[in-house]
């Protein structure tokens, strides 16, 4: 499970460096996410590299979001069409702020932080 963390002023970017976020790595994803976001503020989950998400991967995203607690927000960035399709089918697109690209998500988060 390859995942990277980039801290910004008031938020951090977690990038999933895998082409599939699925049943075979869902548990490792949850562990890795929790360890890199143990301290800090809001999170942008960068899914740019992820070509495919299954229900286990989706469940893991929901689980880590809940694990952040009510005070921290999480946005999703860089959804490829199959990932977006799963988000839409399950209506999880109503839960998360979703940005077409990581740059747009960072711009929005930076603006929010400046206000």
């Amino acid at each position, binding site marked *: 499970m390859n995942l990277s963390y980039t801290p910004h002023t008031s938020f951090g970017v977690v990038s999933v460096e895998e082409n*599939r976020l*699925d*049943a*075979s790595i869902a548990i490792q994803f949850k562990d890795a996410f929790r360890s890199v976001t143990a301290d800090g503020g809001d999170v942008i989950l960068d899914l740019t590299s992820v070509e*495919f998400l*299954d*229900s*286990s991967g*989706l*469940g*893991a995203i*929901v*689980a880590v*979001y*809940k694990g952040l607690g*009510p005070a921290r927000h999480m946005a999703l960035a860089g959804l490829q*069409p*199959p990932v977006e*399709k*799963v988000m839409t*089918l*399950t*209506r*999880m697109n*109503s*839960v998360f702020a979703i940005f077409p690209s990581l740059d747009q998500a960072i711009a929005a988060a930076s603006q929010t932080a400046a206000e």
Partner: protein
Amino acid sequence: MSNPSGARAAERPVPDVQRRIVSGTAQVREALDQVRLDCAGAGADDALNTSAQIVLAEVLNNVVEHAYLYAEGHPIDVSIWVREDGLWCEVVDEGRVMPDGTPPAGIMPDIDVSAPGTLPEGGFGWAMVRRMTRDIEYARQNSRNHLGFLIPA
């Protein structure tokens, strides 16, 4: 055409895609990649192939988790007929029978955006399968599960 997976073996056409997978989540991941290439080679377009990836991932992982209880090394046979109306699929395994002898109803879990702490973390798999397929048929024959369905074009 009628559902090829429902026809008698002797009468039905040879599948366009055929894969034997050995049970295991990593093996399913690898097989899905191969099936995507196979289906594209047999004429399925990107949108249909995306649907197939989503549906087959759920169906195959359900076999690994619920029919074989994560035991590795057991066979899962996937057959796909690429037709104008979509992908007719059949998945056969030798694991446990489905609960109540029938595929899950697959009701999409409720989401309450105002209460993030209550968001569901599971229950999406069969709900997505039900939303993305038609003509689901399930039979238990000779200690095997046969699941057939159409992923419409």
